[in-house]
């Protein structure tokens, strides 16, 4: 029994009917994506310029074109539960070149918003939230950095919240307004106990 561990499940998954059916499509999803992203997500004609421009695609399974297709078809569940959603680096290369003048990056951002409402979000993103709440930086300064800055004749800390911590309450106020920190804390706790 132990020797076949995983095989029956894998086989079952392979043999499952993978066709998508009308019920998989939620027209509201297309509308919501459009409303949040403020771009014409429904106008994609699948030319592939976005994926061809994407620095993430050659090194990952992330396919921006696939998410655009899901936006057109309203395949909400498929889009929001795909972990690839979080692999976009938001470089905006696709948005620069899209011949239909869509901003695919903003489509991804809107889908991340919708996923977050369902608590679908990788923990590292939440830890970034916590880091910003604590220091004002997603990637706070560290000693290696400080030494490098000193070498270059710069101040040990950059002229940001690191140098002016008095601005932190303002940043926290914004984050609290959207309950972002509270939600992040809750989800991290649920995941990591």
């Amino acid at each position, binding site marked *: 029994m132990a020797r076949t561990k995983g095989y029956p499940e894998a086989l079952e998954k392979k043999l499952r009917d993978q066709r998508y059916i009308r019920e998989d499509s939620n027209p509201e999803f297309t509308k919501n994506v459009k409303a949040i992203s403020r771009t014409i997500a429904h106008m994609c*004609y*699948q*030319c*592939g*310029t*976005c*994926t*061809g*421009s*994407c620095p993430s*695609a*050659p090194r990952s399974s992330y*396919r921006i*074109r*696939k998410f655009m297709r899901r936006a057109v078809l309203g395949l909400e569940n498929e889009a929001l539960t795909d972990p690839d959603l979080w692999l976009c680096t938001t470089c905006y*290369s696709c948005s620069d*070149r*899209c*011949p*239909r*003048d869509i901003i695919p990056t903003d489509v991804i951002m809107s889908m991340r918003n919708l996923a977050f409402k369902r608590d679908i979000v990788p923990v590292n993103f939440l830890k970034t939230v916590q880091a910003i709440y604590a220091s004002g930086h997603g990637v706070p300064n560290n000693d290696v950095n400080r030494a490098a800055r000193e070498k270059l004749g710069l101040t040990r800390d950059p002229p940001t919240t690191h140098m002016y911590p008095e601005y932190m309450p303002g940043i926290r106020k914004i984050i609290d307004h959207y309950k972002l920190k509270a939600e992040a804390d809750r989800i991290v706790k649920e995941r990591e106990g």
Partner: protein
Amino acid sequence: MAEKKATTKKAPSKKEDSKKVAPVKQETKKAAAPAAKPKAAPAEAAAVAPTTNAGDARVGVFICHCGTNIAGSMDIEAVQEASKKVPHVAYVDNYKYMCSMPGQTVISKAVKDHKLTAVVVAACTPRLHEPTFRTATKDAGLNPFRFEMANIRDQNSWVHMHDREGSTDKAIDAIKIAVAKAALLQDLHPKSVPVEPTAMVVGAGVAGMQAALDLAAAGIKTYLIESDMSIGGRMSQLDKTFPTLDCSQCILTPKMVDVGRAENIELMTWSEVHEVEGYIGNFDVTIRKKARGVMTPKEAEAKGIVGGGCNGCGDCENVCPVVKPNEFEIGMKPRKAIYINHPQVVPLIYTIDFNSCVKCGLCVTACGPEKRAIDLEMKDEFVKVKVGTAILATGYDIFPIEKKEEWGYKRFENVISSLEFERLICASGPTGGHLVRPSDGETPKRVAFVLCAGSRDNTGTGKPYCSRFCCMYSLKHAHQIIEKIPGCIPYLFYMDIRSFGKMYEEFYYRIQDEGAKFIRGRVANIIEDPKTKNLHVMTDDTLLDRPIDMEVDMVVLAAAIQPKEDTNRTRKLFGVSCSMDGWLLEAHPKLNPCGTTTAGVFLAGVCQGPKDIPDTVASAEGAASAASIPIHMGAVELEPYFAMCIEDKCAGCGMCVNLCPYSALSLVEKNGRTVMQVTEAKCKGCGTCGGFCPGGAIWMNHFATPQIVAQIDAFLLGGEQ
């Protein structure tokens, strides 16, 4: 005619004019309707203001269902009932298709049975069916201009498809407005003008040549105007044509020769349309003959140099010291300051590029004392011709594809445009038909074709339309390199292959079978290897769902096309509109693709929108046929919408004369006074003068102030007048 209708009482004040006016003579409608066609009103006839009076007008309203187009979105019964209550309405009826024969019979029967004086049809647009219903009105015994249309379809039922109540109310309003005008309509008589039995074709590419040949064959003297030094246009730059793979020059040259020979064609190359005046049947066109510095045998003879003029020997070219890039070869071959485009040119006359000529005179000496063809001091000449109809065949340019920076055109040597490819693969081209890399002259073994380069692009940098022939010529290019370079693989990067024409899909099949590789993905960007000058084509193989980095030796961009640079200037001269993308606007995209909204001006070929050669030739033949009709008819009727001067009111200030965009107005002395006079044939009825005249002395036929005021009143006051 006008005497009869013009009441003899003094012109009424504005108020009376628009509201209620003295009782009308009953005989107007009776006499006017079947009256023998009077001669067009001479200008003096308009000495007194024509007045209109709704008095005892009897208007018939006919509501069309247009199947469910109209009836599906509004309550026809309610519209009919409401229409009955509108003042002056004597009869109301509805019918499923008013434009059908039975529908028209409903109209003519009602006119007779109910002694109607005017007809209102509430249906589609005047653009579509005004002629139909005018004819029906005429057949019923009324003057055809006693007809008014209420648009309750295109501007109502189609827009308010889901608002039954709203569209019903709006239709009732539209009918009230139409009835208000119909009650005040007058008999009008179209003016017939003779048509000059000559035609003009602007542009001598394959479209212009075909149109000119057809017109000439139909016995019509045709002026063929070409801004370049020789004819043939874009097609003469192509190597082969899809899907038959005919040599482009081989099939074009006989036509070019025919054009040169045709007795009825007066070919004017190196010439541009400078000015256009007049109207259908009577266009006065001024042509600027650019100084070409070389005389034709004919021109030489006219100057008394018998047996002289250019014979195309080329002696001048041999001695010319100036070297410039040849535009015909897209700069890939040198030319002299005195040159011809290619060996098969028609007409075979050399031309001097005065922008680069240093006037050294070597060519003059080489040409010799017999021919004396060269005149370095030649100046532009202006020639005036009169034509009845004109065809615009101004063609296209290649979109400057370097604007799409991601593909590196003009940055990377081995990225070329499709037109450059045509010249490189052509036996008469700069390399004698050997496709080579511009960077090192090597023969490429892997060539990428980037389709939709700048087409189907909504970014504002490219063109939103499909350029329509790039798919097919790229297939042809793929075939040519497979045929000419053993082992060379063409990769076609495409979004969709649009092989829609006769034998086109079969051609696609053939090229795939020959070994071309098709990769479905629009090219995201191209990167040059600075050492090898090879190119990395980056895209997404959308069918495999994998990004792709394809290293190739050469990239050919199937660039979008756009209207020829000078199109806008030319179209304005002829009063032709263009659509948002700059292509010239046809009168109707489906039912009148060759006509324009300017009577007597027609479109042929790509200037109207991207077309391949078969479609271009077909469109040219259509335009030639359409342009020959008025000439064969001998006369055309002009819409009688011209302005008239009410001489009693005219102060002779002359301000309207300068405002008129058609130069139709002038000041004349009459009975010791200066008054304005309208040249009716020139007047287009635009109303600029009528709207401006400070004294209200200009009467716009069919759009007269009382008629328009009545329409506004009908809308604001609900039909009460």
